């Protein structure tokens, strides 16, 4: 018994359409350029800083929503809102719904998944803030200065990759298996 709901759509749009295909793609390309001995195209580096990097600020909100709403949106208790489980008597629902929810939390280790994702998003938020600060302090000006921040950029990219994996590992369906 499965159902498609808004959370899944928003997860696909965030993780597949944006984070992996766009943000991480641009970030990895930026890192590759930064690692090149002579970055022959500083314009591309600056383009990333101006157009791609800041998008996290907007998307962070979506990431938090996904993680915070996950338990509520994807719990199999949602199945009791639609046929045939909505036909259960209120008396049965009273004990069955919390039990199904509890079993689901345990089975998918939801608290751990959510905690990990929260820590990753927080890490990216912090990294974003720190990098933005360094950039506004003149780091954006030259390739040399950007390269001096390479380790910080790499840590930031690792967190993004890790978040993508983590969100990808969340259960894909609302189901009672």
């Amino acid at each position, binding site marked *: 018994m499965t159902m498609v709901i808004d959370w899944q*759509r928003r997860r696909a749009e965030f993780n597949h*359409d944006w984070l*992996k295909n766009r943000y991480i*793609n641009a970030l990895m390309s930026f890192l*590759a350029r930064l690692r090149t001995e002579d970055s022959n*195209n500083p314009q591309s580096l600056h383009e990333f800083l101006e157009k791609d990097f800041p998008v996290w600020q907007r998307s962070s909100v979506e990431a938090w929503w996904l993680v915070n709403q996950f338990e509520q949106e994807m719990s199999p208790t949602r199945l009791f809102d639609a046929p045939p489980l909505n036909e259960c008597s209120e008396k049965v629902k009273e004990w069955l719904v919390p039990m199904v929810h509890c079993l689901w939390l345990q089975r998918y280790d939801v608290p751990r998944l959510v905690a990990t994702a929260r820590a990753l998003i927080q890490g990216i938020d912090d990294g974003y803030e720190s990098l933005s600060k360094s950039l506004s302090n003149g780091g954006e000006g030259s390739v040399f200065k950007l390269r001096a921040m390479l380790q910080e950029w790499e840590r930031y990219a690792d967190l993004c990759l890790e978040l993508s994996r983590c969100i990808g590992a969340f259960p*894909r369906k609302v189901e009672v298996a």
Partner: protein
Amino acid sequence: MIPNLPRILVVDDIYGATRGDRNRDRESFCYRSGIADITGDISAERLRDPVVEGIFCSGQVQTGERLENDLAATLESIRRGFSQYPRWALLLLDLHFKAGRIVNGEVEGRDEDRDPHLYFGLQVLREIRKDEALVDLPVIILSSMDRTEVEAVFSGLSALDFCDKSILDRERMQKLLQDHGLIEDEKIIGHSLSLLTRLRDARRRARHGNDNILIVGETGTGKELLANYIHRWSGRTGEYVPLFTQGVPDTLIEDRLFGHEKGAFAGANTAVAGPAEQANGGTLFIDEFGDIPLSVQPKLLRLLDANIRETQRLGATKATKLDLQVVMATSRLGNLRREKISGDLLYRAKAEIAIELPPLRNRPEDIPILAELFLRRYEERLGAEHRTIPSETLEILKRHDWPGNVRDLERVIEHAVLDYKGIRVLSPQHLNIHKSTPFESSPSEEQGRDERIKAETTKVASSSKMEVLVLSDLLRSLVEFPYDRMPTADLIGSIGTARDAMARCLAGLLRQALVATSRPTPEKPEGEIYYSPAIHLLLGIQEQDKADWRTPRCADMVRYIVGISEDLREELLSDPVLRTAYEAATRLRRRK
């Protein structure tokens, strides 16, 4: 190791899309994966050191305010680029394609497209696998979607790998190419599908690094080149050491392969490491491994057993452990199964998964590039005019049977350049090949071989021009002669006849080599006969191997050749050149 940049096709809705003058997502993807974008639909950045050339296709078509997946056009792009050179070395295929209404410049997406079992990428893959012309197309799934739900589906449709979009970089792209790509080589010239798939097989086997690999192919198909290719791709840092067993007397093969200790036999004045030992850490190549006599096979088995890998020099009391890859070759696997080659040896050689090199007649697509290569080589070497190859000549070259394969083609081109140095157009008249093509149709391989043998026999018998006879062709005809169909009457006394023929053949070769290596002196202006250089020439002994072939060993070889047939010895020795060499060899052996 890759001469021309391989070309790949990327079918992906985001990176394949044409958005105004630029697609920044594609630019980023190309930069980090080392792809030179040659799609030509938008301006592309020029990479300094690309790994591949890439053409991008979105797999979609926009009609009004909607974007729809376009299966027919996608398949057409795939087919068109795989049917001709430069064909796709790889196809990177996305799984989920976002389609539907376009709202504010963004595609809305549809829930059904997100259903893993309805992914457009899988639909494309299903159609690819139905198409015979695409059976060899290497497909890699390139996606940012979760793979678990569709793993079994794309594996079942022979996708070779799954690559997560977010982690693809230059190194991974190179690895994908090495493992699965149809890529050319700078030394094994050609880009036909049959050749490139064999090169891929060879790379995959080489990756193992400690395997025994058997190469099967007709004479002149490039078995040694492929062995060297396997060595280059194995990542082994030791040497590549070839061993050629053809023409080496049985009694000498063990010594040639395993070497000897000082004093192991008369004349063994120093210890000599065999090629197996020299190849330690690298690759040993044994050409025509079926020529290794039964008596030596048990020792070879120990070398081929990957768990043992031992060699023992003649006269040694202890075996030496080795770490090497062994590549073997044969031009007659079918015969080997019937001949005196042990089943164990064939098993250890992994005959069941041998890499079969295609004959040149099965890859006519490669003939123009090979002909061009040989032309330039011999024009330069012989100081001849630079010439073009008109299509009429190319057609003849492509339709010829080439029984001696690439070597045969090289010989024909060499003669054409040598005989017509001042000519600037290679005309059909310059080609010293038979105009009739034995294969107008495409008979089965078995039929083909019989017809070829018949054609060769007729060619030899009817030809009055000795220069068209090539020894390798003659020997090949002899080897492939359909002995199993000989009438009983023809078998009577056939061993004696064959032995005498072999004695005459080897004596003829020896005489020619003695004349070729003779040196004029004031006393003997016609040339002084020296048998060691002649034997070196006949056996193809390289400078570094001459220590193994000192005068006494050469003397033995001369005496062996002259003594093959008792009945003919007197007749052969009536020739002054052979007699001089034989007497000198006999004198030396008496002194010893």
